[in-house]
């Protein structure tokens, strides 16, 4: 499902963000990518989204070879991925409902399907009674759940969450990860990027540890979380 083969990323100016990173995440896995600030975690996500290109190495996501993918096909790659950004990236002029519906609309989904699906997803993330609220009227945790709903709404094969627990208190972090765990149980591959070692330990899932752009540890399939 996600394959990194000796991937190196050097930013212009000579910053080596990733150095020969090599791992495979299978369909249905639940994985933490753990690393301190500047370890290269966000760079990893940017490469998966084809927002950046690797300097060296091969990346394959959901049968797309990112080195060879044509520009025209990038939107379809991205539809396979549901991304929860660290800063949520919600549109302030749209309600929670519209923020989620927007993601479906721009991918050419029928209006009727949108009306059916959006309330259902908002219910899953526990926001059914906040659907008409604007982002600024929502707490950090609620905004995060809107972002999560948006990532989930078109049923992606892979969920990528960048620091989903960064701006919220520990109790909420755990709830979010629990929810992602739930989604994972239904068959979606989930990758959580975090610097919170406590959280990763608590869930006893496979953890890939990044340090200065290198994979220093990969606890492949520990404790039966990856099925």
């Amino acid at each position, binding site marked *: 499902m996600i394959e990194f083969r000796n991937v190196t990323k050097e930013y212009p100016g000579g910053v080596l963000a990733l150095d020969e990173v090599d791992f495979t995440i299978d369909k249905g896995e639940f994985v933490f990518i753990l690393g301190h600030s500047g370890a290269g975690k966000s760079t990893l996500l940017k490469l998966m*989204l084809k927002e950046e290109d690797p300097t060296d190495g091969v990346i394959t996501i959901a049968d797309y070879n990112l080195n060879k993918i044509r520009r*025209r096909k990038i*939107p*379809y*790659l*991205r*539809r396979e991925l549901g*991304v929860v*950004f660290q800063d949520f*990236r919600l*549109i302030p002029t749209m309600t929670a409902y519209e923020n989620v519906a*927007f*993601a479906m*609309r*721009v*991918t*050419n*989904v*029928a*209006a009727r399907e949108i009306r059916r699906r959006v309330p259902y997803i908002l219910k899953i993330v526990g926001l059914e009674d906040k659907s008409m609220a604007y982002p600024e009227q929502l707490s950090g945790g609620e905004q995060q759940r809107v972002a999560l709903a*948006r990532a989930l709404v*078109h049923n992606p094969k892979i969920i990528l969450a960048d620091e989903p627990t960064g701006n919220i208190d520990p109790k909420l972090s755990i709830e979010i990860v629990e929810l992602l765990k739930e989604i994972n149980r239904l068959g979606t591959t989930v990758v959580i990027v975090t610097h919170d070692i406590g959280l990763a330990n608590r869930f006893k899932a496979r953890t890939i540890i990044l340090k200065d752009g290198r994979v220093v540890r990969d606890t492949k399939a520990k404790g039966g979380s990856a099925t």
Partner: protein
Amino acid sequence: MRGSSFGYLVKQGIINVWINRMMSMASIGILTACMIIVGGSGLLAVNVRDIFREIENKNELVVFVKEETDEIVLNEMYSKIDGMEHVSSYHYVSKADALEEQKSFMGDKGYLLEGLEDDNPLPASFRVKVDSLENLESVVLELNQMNGVDSISAPTDLAKTLTGVEKAFLILGSIIIGILIVASAVVISNTIRLTLYARRREIRIMKYVGATDSFIRLPFVVEGITIGAVSAGLAFGVLSLIYESLGVMFSKSGITWLTGVSTSLIPFANLWQYVLLAFLGFGVFIGAFGSGSSIRRYLRA
């Protein structure tokens, strides 16, 4: 693309015009002004052309034939004139015809010419029409080389002036129109760039959730086209008002030549379809082109 999405995107484009209304209004204003100038010059040009055509038709060369020119030379002249490239029509006016013509020209004072039949002082002539004023001079030169020509009366100076004016009009008009087209495209593309800037967050998010380029582009192209089309409508309205009221003003002015101009003006009823079509075509093209060019940069980034 499905209909509901298309409808949604078109609506977004029109909403963009409203959200960005200060800038939209400014660019509609500038575009409307550009179109009025271009359209006004166009209308002026067709009218001037029309007047020139009339002058061209009315003005003929008169080739006076020498006294005592015999049949042979006359026939030679006939066939020469007949074979000339830029001559559109000609006819021969004999001495007797010339006298008759002069008589009828003088109306009830024509009797003064009675009795001149036997001692007719009026020369015979060929009346030659040239296909275009531009060619007048060369035709005159050619005619002058014929045998039997006494003199030629031709409005060469007028022809020179008129063709010069027409050429100047054409060149100046093309330059102005070119500048205005570029200016219009720049104005629209800057307006759209502002909307793009205001919506950059949305565009980025659209890209991350997998919107295709054409999906992202469409509302902005619609925005550009809307601005172009609204400007076209306004420019059409204003220009038709100006044109009609100028006609009325001229005819009521009491100044002879202005009244004359007003009667030879091409009626707007014969022109409006072309004007509207040209404005809409121009507005839609500039709108689509201007927005497209600014979006391209955004999509690359």
